[in-house]
């Protein structure tokens, strides 16, 4: 054997690939943390700045081109500020997103009297409750067909059709509510008259009519523009911004609730755990495989034969085997030839052990085994006899 030299394992491409994987992992990690930490308007459902299929940028752009001043707000504070700036006739629209909760609905309720027109589109049950207009959503449905207006107001023609909705609105005990686009569980649109203003509040069940992906279906665009384009200025409240406002402590951080830093620390600890996994999970070289030879326990065949005997429970044969073995050993011990017959063997054993001949004959030749305990007793008797012969 001679001195051997190490050669680096080939794999520039592999290590390069490894680097790419690592960089990718890091990028994903950073991206994830950013995505979680900066609520991104671009991802909010029915948001006028969201260009995706569920966003509503198209309708907002069309409104702007038509000369409507669109003010987009994401927070309750922003809504209050925008309301304060409103001069003349204005419309407020609140679109339902993942972030539209009870407080968001309340915020709208607080300001809606300042606007000539109020439109609510695709709000969740929580947000609807917060608005206190007495309208509730139905349970989700699968409505495949387009809805036909089937009502007559200033706004909506009898034959207007909008695309399917995922649920309906049900008017509460408010008797003046007028429902349009009826379905099997409620209405696609509910119009509420107002005491302080001649114009109604319009509540739309689904956000689909203003979303980029479905605005071109049926008469969605017509209805959307009619609802939102009635006044020269439009305040678009799309809840989803960070409500952190030093001047007004948000109600969610009241006493007894989890402080805000806990989730941040948990996130940081999560990053630490991922780091620890990467640290401990990287092996220093591959696992080495040991080729093992086949080795079998030698006694196993005999043991399985014993189990077979047990299963068949052939007591007579078992006893015969044990007797034969004892006779053979006793013959060896007494130096008798293997052809010795029953009577000579019995006689020799009587001389050697002093036991009565009948007992020896019974033990070695005559006894039967009707059950298991008898067999065990006889087997032990045979061993005892052998030992007596061995040590007379």
């Amino acid at each position, binding site marked *: 054997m001679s*001195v051997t030299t190490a050669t680096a394992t080939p794999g520039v491409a592999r290590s390069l690939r490894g680097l790419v994987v690592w960089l990718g992992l890091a990028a994903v990690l950073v991206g994830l943390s950013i995505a979680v930490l900066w609520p991104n308007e671009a991802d909010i459902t029915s948001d006028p700045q969201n260009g995706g299929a569920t966003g509503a940028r198209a309708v907002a752009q069309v409104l702007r081109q038509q000369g409507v001043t669109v003010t987009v707000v994401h927070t309750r504070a922003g809504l209050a500020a925008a309301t304060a700036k409103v001069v003349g006739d204005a419309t407020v629209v609140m679109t339902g997103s993942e972030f539209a909760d009870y407080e968001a609905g309340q915020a709208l309720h607080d300001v809606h009297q300042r606007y000539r027109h109020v439109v609510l589109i695709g709000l969740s049950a929580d947000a609807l409750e917060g608005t206190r207009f007495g309208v509730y959503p139905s349970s989700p449905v699968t409505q495949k067909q387009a809805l036909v207006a089937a009502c007559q107001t200033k706004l909506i023609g009898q034959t207007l059709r909008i695309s399917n909705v995922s649920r309906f609105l049900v008017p509460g005990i408010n008797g003046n509510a007028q429902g349009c686009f009826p379905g099997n569980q409620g209405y696609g649109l509910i119009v509420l008259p107002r005491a302080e203003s001649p114009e109604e509040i319009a509540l739309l069940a689904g956000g689909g009519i203003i979303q980029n992906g479905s605005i071109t279906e049926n008469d969605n665009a017509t209805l959307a523009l009619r609802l939102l384009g009635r006044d020269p200025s439009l305040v678009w409240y799309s809840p989803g911004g960070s409500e952190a406002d030093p001047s007004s402590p948000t109600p969610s951080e009241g006493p007894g609730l989890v402080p805000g830093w806990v989730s941040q620390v948990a996130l940081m600890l999560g990053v630490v755990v991922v780091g620890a996994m990467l640290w401990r999970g990287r092996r220093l070289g591959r696992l080495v495989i040991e080729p093992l030879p086949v080795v079998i326990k030698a006694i196993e065949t*005999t043991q399985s034969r014993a189990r077979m005997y047990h299963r068949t429970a052939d007591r007579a044969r078992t006893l015969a085997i044990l007797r034969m073995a004892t006779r053979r050993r006793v013959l060896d011990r007494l130096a008798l030839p293997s052809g010795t017959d029953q009577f000579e063997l019995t006689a020799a054993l009587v001389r050697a052990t002093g036991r009565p001949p009948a007992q020896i004959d019974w033990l070695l030749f005559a006894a039967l085994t009707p059950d298991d305990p008898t067999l065990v007793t006889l087997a032990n008797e045979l061993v005892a006899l052998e030992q007596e012969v061995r040590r007379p």
Partner: protein
Amino acid sequence: MSITGHTVLLLALGVGAVLWRPDGTTVGAWTLGVVLAVILDAVLAPSPRQLSILRKPTDPVRIDQDTTTVLQVTNNGRRRLRGVLRDAWLPSAGATRNRHRLALAGGDSVSLVTPLRPTRRGDRTADRITVRSLGPLGLAARQKGFDCPGTVRALPAFPSRKHLPGMLAKLQQIEGRAAVRTRGQGTEFDSLRDYVEGDDVRSIDWRATARRRTVVVRTWRPERDRRILLVLDTSRLSAGRVGDVPRLDSAMDAALLLTAIAAKAGDHIGFVAGDRTVRATVAKASRTDVLARVSAAMSQLDPTLVEANWRELAAAITAQGRKQSLLVLLTPLEPAAVSETLLPVLANLAARHRIVIASVADPELSAMADARDDIVAVYSAAAAEVALDARRRTANALRQLGVAVLDEPADALPVALADYYLALKSRGQL
């Protein structure tokens, strides 16, 4: 690439930063910073490729004996390389402390010693050497594998070596006794020496006495230069484990003890191992190197799950010489296999050679036959009695062919075989 515990520690410090400024951006910024530092560190780490590694050969050892393997690691680059090196071996090579810290300045060289303690027979090979080179910040490391072949040959354990001094003493006794008293058949003339009181008068060489003034006696010694052939069966039966040791290993132990004694006694030893085909042969070995050669041949053998082809092995036996003084067959006494494959060949071989069959008995079988505590034990006892009886019958059938049979437990077999050999030797029957 890999990261170190320092990176995790640094990430953990981020918790403090988050507590100080509990804002969503803190977590992201901290993580991003650490990731960038890690990437930078990995890029700055010196490449492990600048190392060259040499492995020095390792001498064969017996199983469970300590040895070492030495790596000569040289840093061919200019930059200092810090890190870890892992010298990976098969688990059965017993390389326990195989991770070495590296701190090599440019051009420096270091010898890394990994202790080895093989636990299984055969050539235990080294796997890859892995080097992890730390970056200057200690946050990340570059990792690289090197193929650096290495082997340590693990010879059979030979636990019966402890009997060797006793056996050699017996051998000397035989030789001494033969020189003084025995003048039996088959002894050979050794030398002439002066008569001392107590010598057998029958050994006086009168012709030599007549030429000299003193009485001269002839001395005798046991025959030397007998040919002994060990045949090791590596078939499926040898794969059976008795206690914790496979039958093959116990048989090797017995063969090695006999080899050591016979070599000292001046006999020639041949070795054949095989199952369906011949796996190993040692022929024409000198007395001094026969033990090493037989050990080396054995180290490569593993049981195979096939039936032994005794015709093939008989041909190999004949190829080792037409007449052997003693043919030792190390094969388990398994009734079915013996009667079907060995017996037909054995009749032929027995006509030409003196044969002894050494078989590893299973003490568990006898214990099973004696235990009769409950009904399960009684059925087991019956099964064991059947097996024992079959072995006994097989042994008897073999003895009728003039073959000696040694059926002993693993620890007693080497001694039994050596005693048998010495008995033949002392009687001059080889």
